[in-house]
């Protein structure tokens, strides 16, 4: 069965590439553009992995991440945070709040895919 990936980012131009890449790998993809939608989609869509942008309207990626981790039912969801905020302190915060990986924009698509494959155990 194909794995499911949720892309939460409010920048359509990056979403196009991410969506294309994930579909190429045969994953089922859902795209949302703010934090609240992201949290809802985690419940409805049940993704295996979330590509989570930090700077989103309504609810920040940090908050979404912390909420996901507070729900034991979602313990298996892998979270990759994507952010234009690249300081050490933000990376530390993202990881502390339960993200499995923190990727700073701009990133290499190859590295990102490698990270996604690794997290999905493929």
């Amino acid at each position: 069965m194909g794995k499911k990936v949720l892309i939460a980012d409010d920048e359509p131009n990056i979403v196009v590439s991410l969506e294309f890449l994930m579909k190429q790998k045969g994953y089922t993809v859902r795209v949302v553009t703010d934090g609240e939608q992201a949290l809802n989609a985690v419940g409805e869509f049940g993704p295996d992995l979330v590509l989570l942008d930090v700077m989103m309207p309504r609810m920040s990626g940090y908050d979404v991440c912390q909420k996901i981790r507070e729900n034991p039912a979602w313990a298996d969801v892998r979270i990759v945070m994507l952010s234009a905020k690249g300081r050490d302190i933000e990376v530390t915060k993202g990881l502390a709040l339960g993200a499995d990986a923190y990727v700073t924009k701009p990133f290499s698509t190859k590295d990102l895919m490698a990270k996604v494959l690794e997290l999905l155990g493929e």
Partner: protein
Amino acid sequence: MSDRIRFAVALAAAWAFLLATLAAAALLVAADLSDAERALVAPLLREHAPSVVAIALLALVPLALILGVLHRRHVTAPRQLAEDARIILAANPAHRAPVRGSGEVMRLAESFNQLADANAALRHDVESRVRDANERIEQERNRLAALMSELAQSVIVCNIEGRILLYNARAMQLLRQPQESAAAPGKAHSLVGLGRSIFAIFDRNLIIHALEGIHDRLREGARGADASFVTTAPAGQLVRVQMAPVQGAAAGQTPAAAVEGITGFVLVLDNITRRIEAGNRRDLLLQTLTEGTRASLGSVRAAVETIAAFPDMDKAAQERFIGIIGEEAQRLSARLDQTASDFADSLRTEWPLENMRGADLIAAVRRRIEARLELPTKLEAVDESVWLNVDSYSLMQAITYLVTRLREEFGIREVRFALETAGALAHLDVIWTGAPLGSETAMTWQTDSMNAGGEASPLTLKQIVERHNAEIWYQIHKVTHRECFRIAIPLTQPEEAAWSAPPGLGSRPEYYDFDLFNQPGQTPEQDNRPLAALSYTVFDTETTGLQPSAGDEIVSIGAVRIVNGRLLEHEVFEQLVDPRRDMSPEASRITGIEASMLEGQPTIDKVLPAFRAFCEDTVLIAHNAAFDMRFLRLKEDAAGVRFTQPVLDTLLLSAVINPQLDSHRLEAIAERMGVNPIGRHTALGDAIMTGEVFLRMIPLLAEQGIRTLGEAREASQKTYFARVDY
């Protein structure tokens, strides 16, 4: 006895003595005579008796002349000399005693005059020296005043009790009170004034915290110990305050003596509101530049790499990716242009962060929490080597705020602190147990405005953390499995502080005789201070009637200050108050305040805080103070202030001075004391009159041995009037 009578008595005595001598001689002769001789003499005597009486009377004349000369030389002359001496001493130093009388008295008069000459020369010398010294001081003061008025910064000099001794016009301007009366727009009260308390302007704890920092640095042996902090002025401006200690004349050389020798401090205030705003704008620009650039670059890179990785993708997909690349490239160019133009006028922000050992910060936080919140604290692992670059006061405020909310909303019983390093960061953990906070609450706490331990801050937790380039989040502490807030702060090197005083301040000119610093403290020993040395706020209220408990309200408050025995007519408080009830015609007649004048005036709950600030740290004086205090007291809750300072009542003091008199009305006292009744029945007019009356009472009270505040209050209590209950 008058001189004339004395002379007459002396003359009579001398004459009587002469007659008695002659009579005694005649009797002796008569006793020796035989009867025949007596028979011969007696008719002779009888025949010549009138001539004998005449001769006896004539003898008075030379006697009077001789006595007169003696009296002039030996009685009148010394007495006049004594009077001349008194005139020289008391009234006219240029007067000289005329040289006359006996030789001895003349020599005495000459010596007196020589003494007077010597005294006059000495006095003249002293006067000219005093004049010179005063001129020098005046010159130095003028120089200082010129220097201070030229300064772009506001300067306030305080003694160690926080009383303002000196300030410049800019300080007065900067620290105007926000509240303006509708009757006189633009005439806002300034909180700055001679003898007033700095604590009415800045948080007492903030000043004490900065002073403690200076003490610590002096004890470590630093030469020029300054402290700086950022706070808000009463009108809301952001002010950077630099504090420098003022050493007394007896300041010693050792660090401990240097701390002991601090007699006051100088505050240099800088309004950085604009700069901070500019800094915030710059930060925002920088952020949009870097983050925006990263985002666009991310989209471009992902698109390019995708095209490269899948060369055989269909035409439509390829065009879409190329479109993205073009769009993002244009967006990048536009952003760069925008930033370049905006950035040019942004100034560098100087938020004063200071270097501090992390362990010291935690120790300070623990002391504060234990003292303020009476909450036990404990330490987990603390890395002693951690140095941080912080605004210690605001960070302490932030942590206190967190702990306050934890205690108030979750009833935690204890809080623990841990400090560890993680790469280039320090993790400061605030740890507790038994309060499942949840991330949502933790998030709202970060953006709520802080209010902890009675101290409100205009900043939010988030802003304070951002100011330190730090991050804060809520998590489960790994070691203890307890809940915690983790504050991640960049580590710093222990050597240099990030912000230091500009050069030049190190070599301070010695320009002011800080004599005023020698005012004793306004602390528990206040009662032992002489009345003439205290600072007072003399006030009066006008009301709608005489019964506060029956709903009568204050319609006007007037107050004036007395500092160092002088009534400062320019430091006044005058405010009409909307009583929120009708003004009776009777009350209007007495007070001269019409209902129409009160429309649009602030209500008492707005006015009392301003009045409280005006009279901070002074002794209150009012005529029939019990009446005014009763009105104030009833409004304390509504206004959220307390009037706890000592109070003196001129009515009671008048009763102390003149217990036998019936009338102690203000007019009656003023008339007795020779004070002009001006502007009666306006609150300010009455306050000024009460102040004048009080000043004239001080020497009269001293005559009764009442010299200190404590004695004055004690004597007041004992008067009959004090027993009348209002």
